[in-house]
């Protein structure tokens, strides 16, 4: 019950609507009890969101190179190229000394689409 209470509740995964010169970066975080209390801020371009376990956030940015980053004790960054227009990044919380270390892992489309639809809901 305690573990379930940490999971995000929201709408199931929906693809974001894009204008012609936009790109979208879906950052999702499959549920894991380990590190569930850690919700670091994920920044992609100009947008920042905190994603809980079992949640996702769609960062809609103008087409072009975008840097996504997250930080607690350590930091991770991913450089998103301009092409293609849809990207998926899986956020995970790993071992840390005082607080879990966040990781941003770029995931291929096919795998990411099946993962995000089964694991994650929109972060409110």
């Amino acid at each position, binding site marked *: 019950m305690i573990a379930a209470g940490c999971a995000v509740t929201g709408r199931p995964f929906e693809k974001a609507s894009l204008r012609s010169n936009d790109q979208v970066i879906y950052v999702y975080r499959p549920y894991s009890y380990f590190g569930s209390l850690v919700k670091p801020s994920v920044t992609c371009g100009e947008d920042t969101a905190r994603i809980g376990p079992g949640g996702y956030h769609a960062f809609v940015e103008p087409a072009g190179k975008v840097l996504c980053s997250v930080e607690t004790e*350590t930091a*991770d*960054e991913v*450089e998103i190229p301009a092409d293609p227009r849809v990207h998926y990044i899986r956020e995970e919380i790993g*071992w840390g000394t005082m607080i879990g270390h966040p990781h941003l*892992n770029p*995931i*291929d489309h096919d795998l990411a689409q099946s993962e995000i639809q089964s694991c994650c809901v929109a972060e409110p």
Partner: protein
Amino acid sequence: MGPMPTRRFESLMALFIAASIAGCATQQPYLVAPQISDKTADQVADEPHASARPLPYKGRLVEGDPAELPPAVAQALSPNAPLTFTYREELTHDEYHIPMIISALDPVTYAGSPLGDYGVTANATLTIYQGDKAIADYTAKAHVSKSYNLYSEPKHSELERAARDAVRERIDQKLYGDADRIARAVAGPAPTVPE
């Protein structure tokens, strides 16, 4: 009998400390998978450094980011050149993690032993066209990986940059190896000397 147990305890402590220090992982360099080559060591040593000389031809970039090109190609760009370049790069990511339950119970984890690693593979393709005809086509692949531990870990952006740099260097090596042939193709057939 008194000093013996103390001496044995001190020896064990020294052994434990030595093992702990040996278990501390130093900052690992990026591991780049070696490129398989048919050339001998002498042939490789005789080749000039890839970035030291410009290509003997120029081209226009019709596909690719001009800011993200192999150095030799970037040097060879010219808006009015007879050749055209298309360049593509693609990255794939991989990772390996020791299961947390195992690393949590293993004391070497806290001494800095690797908990896993992240890898990036860069695939690149460069095609050179003369009009509608492709006169050269080069592909290269480079894999970069780095381990992480409890106290330090690489950023994905660093690995991606290292993989891109490695694959661009390999494209450059192929370009320099084939430069004379392309230059001859651009120059066309040698004029015949009238009798």
